[in-house]
């Protein structure tokens, strides 16, 4: 059993965040064995400054709005500010991964900043096909990868917190198709024609 191999890293910079995509597999040949497609976010150093700024702002606001300087109550408000920013940081997603196991299924994994991990497994025979489609919201439009499941009305969305770009989603889509064993040649030529 040989060690891990990694493909090239694809990065995308967006609003001060750097998303990087990497694909790891465990065995000798690329075609067998399970593959992990992992997208991680590195927020820049500015986020630490934002955190400190929030704390300082709470402290100064608590000082300013009380006519008589009362250290106890300003401390309480600063504590509130600290806990608020820590809670916001905890819910942020650090990594999202899709693990493709060729005969077993697909596992979706979400790792939060607080090191909490959410995993969900979908059996291979429950999946009809993976689809890449475009979503249009009132303020933005982005590509997403979703799995159509049998006997369920909703699509199962992957990478929904991080929203990576199309060139990061395409390898994941291709490897799920490989695991399912379906051919993708005609669909791929359509994607290249319309981009």
């Amino acid at each position, binding site marked *: 059993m040989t060690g891990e191999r990694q493909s090239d890293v694809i990065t995308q910079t967006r609003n001060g965040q750097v998303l990087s995509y990497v694909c790891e597999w465990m065995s000798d040949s690329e075609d067998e064995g399970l593959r992990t497609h992992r997208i991680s976010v590195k927020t820049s150093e500015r986020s630490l400054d934002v955190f400190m700024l929030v704390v300082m702002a709470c402290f100064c606001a608590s000082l300013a709005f009380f006519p008589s300087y009362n250290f106890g109550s300003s401390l309480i408000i600063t504590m509130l500010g600290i806990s608020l920013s820590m809670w916001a940081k905890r819910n942020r997603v650090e990594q999202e991964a899709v693990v493709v196991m060729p005969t077993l299924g697909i596992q979706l994994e979400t790792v939060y900043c607080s090191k909490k991990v959410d995993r969900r497994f979908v059996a291979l025979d429950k999946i009809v096909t993976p689809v890449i489609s*475009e979503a*249009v*919201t*009132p*303020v*933005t*439009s982005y590509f997403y990868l979703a799995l159509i499941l049998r006997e369920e009305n909703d699509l199962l969305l992957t990478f929904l917190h991080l929203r990576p770009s199309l060139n990061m989603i395409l390898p994941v889509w291709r490897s799920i198709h490989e695991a399912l064993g379906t051919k993708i040649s005609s669909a791929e030529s359509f994607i290249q024609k319309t981009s």
Partner: protein
Amino acid sequence: MTEPRRRHRVLMVSDFFYPNFGGVENHIYYLSQCLMQRGHKVVVATHAYGRRSGVRYMTNGLKVYYIPWLPFYLQTSFPTLFGTFPIIRTIILRERITLVHGHQAFSTLCHEAILHARTMGYKTVFTDHSLYGFADIGSIHMNKVLEFTLADVQQAICVSHTSKENTHLRSRLPPEKIFVIPNAVDTAMFQPDPSSRSQDEIVIVIISRLVYRKGADLLVEVIPEVCSLFPQVRFIIGGDGPKRVRLEEMREKYHLQDRVEMLGAVAHANVRSVLVRGHIFLNSSLTEAFCIAILEAACCGLLTVSTRVGGVPEACSST
């Protein structure tokens, strides 16, 4: 030596697109198809219709963005001055658009898209499809908005010379910037068929939305007179709308059930089959920038009779 033609990537923006049906929608669709045949890329942006929202593809890969903004009055989106900026900017950058083309002065999405495109430095074109008034309060406000939006547009297109005059007076755009490009019909779709007309009676066909603006009230006055003066005349009325009730009442009152046939709403694919059954086409609209219905009827071999309003004298040439 001709230089190689530049390929544009055009964004057509309007509140009015399929599944809504009408002249503006047809114009945008056919123009997009013709531009794509010449090698340019076209994307259409409009607001969501009911559950139809997101991205759809039409013939030849025409991409349509149905943006989920609320339509609030007569199929136009809710006017927020900067609300649509994020999504319009995202669409323009995603599709690498080079030219933004807005349609129809009544469409708020069109005005906002032209405004935002000019803010970002893109070239814009505006096409006006209708005539508007100057006196009532809605028109005054809309003309001011139009003046503001069109202050910086590259070119404007109007469908007739009357429409050009109207647009110039409303928006104070210099006439050199306005081009007149009349609308056209697809002659492959509208071919005459003399064999389907009846030989012993004269059939007059009317196909329009039965609303006040299209002169449905005029029809209610005119049809009984014509029926009593000319016994060999029959009417076929296609279309639906709020004034349909009045026409049905007229039929009852003058006992014209066998002389006037009401077809209800006619799908656009069936319009030709209704037109070829007639000898004369009647258009009674009260205002019209350019009447495509007249062209379609003439293409099918009918004689056209119309009210002399707006751009109609330019569309149908004789008296």
